[in-house]
């Protein structure tokens, strides 16, 4: 039966009456099957992508005929203080929302690994994960608002900061929202590390323990190197997600006050749909795409080199 793997003559076709018709159908069927997916992605993903690329180099505003303006929209990155703030905030997000949740997630995973009832210890961390960005913003906006829960508890405990407006000034408002994301993301990172820890073979750990290694040495020299491929994935996921931060900022502060908490994704949305400057918005989107691509590429390349 191995001879019938030829695509043009599926088994049984040539013996049935009307075989030619079926043969043609079978020949073109694969294209028909792949077509819906290709059509949808081509029309709704690739075409818009190319169009954004194009209008990033124009001054299109939806009202007037657009003119080609070269790299003018990109030059704004060096001139417009709001854009510079946006770039700075995005960097803060990338560093803060990657490092802290990944380190704390690893800590929770390692601490709970092998404990009895480990699932129960992890529940508090997992609860926030599936919250939407808007839901997260509603909760943390409420906690962080001036005179809100955070201020009240600081005042009650006589800790400085009881009168601080966490959301009123940059970059403090960005840092406050990074804390909110840390609260949300820790759990899923812990979960991913947990799965990784369970797949680590016991024998190297046993051998190292017999050699007299203490808990820290075990982690540093055995567990950590074995977790390395997973760490690459977890960090990579966080990097890409934090570069595109939008929901929590939009719902908590709308990028304000005075554009002080905008990220590139928020700036893109604001330029395009609040100001109506599609050209500038598209340029920010293009810049964001280039940066995301570069970061992923450089990071993955470095990681792959150190692993192999």
């Amino acid at each position, binding site marked *: *039966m191995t001879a019938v*793997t030829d695509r043009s003559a599926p088994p*049984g076709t040539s013996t049935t009456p009307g075989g030619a018709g079926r043969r043609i159908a079978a020949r073109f*069927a*694969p*294209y028909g*099957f*792949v077509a*819906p*997916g*290709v059509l*949808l*992605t*081509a029309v709704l993903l690739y075409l818009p*992508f190319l*169009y*954004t690329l194009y209008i990033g180099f124009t001054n299109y505003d939806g009202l007037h005929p657009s003119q080609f303006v070269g790299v003018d929209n990109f030059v704004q990155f060096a001139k417009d203080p709001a854009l510079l703030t946006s770039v700075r905030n995005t960097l803060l997000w990338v560093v803060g929302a990657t490092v802290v949740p990944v380190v704390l997630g690893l800590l929770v995973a390692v*601490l*709970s690994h092998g*404990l009895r009832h480990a699932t129960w*210890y992890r*529940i*508090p*961390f*997992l*609860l*926030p994960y*599936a*919250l*939407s*960005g*808007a*839901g997260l913003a509603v*909760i943390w906006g*409420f*906690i962080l608002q001036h005179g809100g*829960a955070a201020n*009240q*508890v600081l005042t009650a405990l006589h800790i400085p900061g009881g009168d601080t407006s966490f959301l009123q000034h940059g970059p403090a408002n960005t840092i406050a929202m990074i804390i909110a994301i840390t609260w949300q993301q820790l759990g*899923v990172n812990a*979960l*991913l590390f947990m*799965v990784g820890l369970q797949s680590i073979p016991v024998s190297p750990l046993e051998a190292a323990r017999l050699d007299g290694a203490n808990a820290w040495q075990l982690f540093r020299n055995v567990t950590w190197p074995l977790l390395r491929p*997973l760490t690459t*994935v977890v960090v990579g996921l966080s990097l890409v997600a934090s570069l*595109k931060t*939008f929901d929590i900022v*939009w*719902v908590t502060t709308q990028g304000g006050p005075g554009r002080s908490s905008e990220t590139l*994704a928020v700036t893109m949305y604001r330029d*395009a*749909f609040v100001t109506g400057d*599609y050209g500038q*918005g*598209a340029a*920010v989107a293009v810049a*964001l795409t280039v940066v*995301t*691509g570069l970061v992923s590429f450089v990071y*993955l390349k470095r990681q792959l080199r150190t692993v192999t």
Partner: protein
Amino acid sequence: MRIGGVIRRAVLIVLGAIWLVPVYLLLVNAFRPGADYTGDHVWTPSATFGLFDNFAKAWDNADLGPSIGSTVLYSVVSPAVGVVVGALAAYAIVVLRLRHGFAWFLAVYGGTIFPTQMLLIPLFLGYSDTNLYDNRFGMVLIYTTISVPLAAFVMRNFFTGVAYEVFEAARIDGASVFTAFWRIYLPLSVPALAAVFILDFTFVWNDLMFGLTLSQDQSVRPIQTALSALNSAYAGTSVPTVLAAGLIVSLPTVALFLATQRLFARGLTLGQY
């Protein structure tokens, strides 16, 4: 090891308690009657139960009801269709051995590698020109498309693991190419399909950006967009009402995630790299 275990538990319990504080604050203040809320004493629970009342207010003030209906439609129909479309493509590539299959696969899968910001402006302009803007079908269409690439990826892996003899046997028994897909390959892959469906469901349910960009009407816009509007200094909306809305909007995905953690974790590491 005994002492180590105690310390580990202690650290986890303290950290876990800190992690529960925002949940506590959310619950306490979503349960507080709107009229009792002054902004002070947010840490102490109210003696009166006001959750249902708050939710009723959210339902009326922000038209959460129709919005939830639409969101259920988007987050169930789109991932379901998207998963089947992705599976069809994977079937053509792997089982039907489409010529240049890998290139076709890259074409479908590559659709998700760039940020969604690259799509918003043309989608908004195109939707406005074609009456898809502020239209339930338009929303289903974009959410479906977003669901296709991951499905194609996962199903390609899955079908590669199915013996080709399954296909040959089906064909010998007279099954058409489509029947083999619909009756044999699709049922075989239900667990994989379910994993993708759950991830996509969560994505669509939690989406804010497409809703914000492509819809406006209270009955068309998805729930996160409605919540966002309710949160932004909506006249006459008390804080407990907003929190109650946030709570109820969040329940489906939080419950789904807690129930399917492991599937989720696997799906996450699968899809992105």
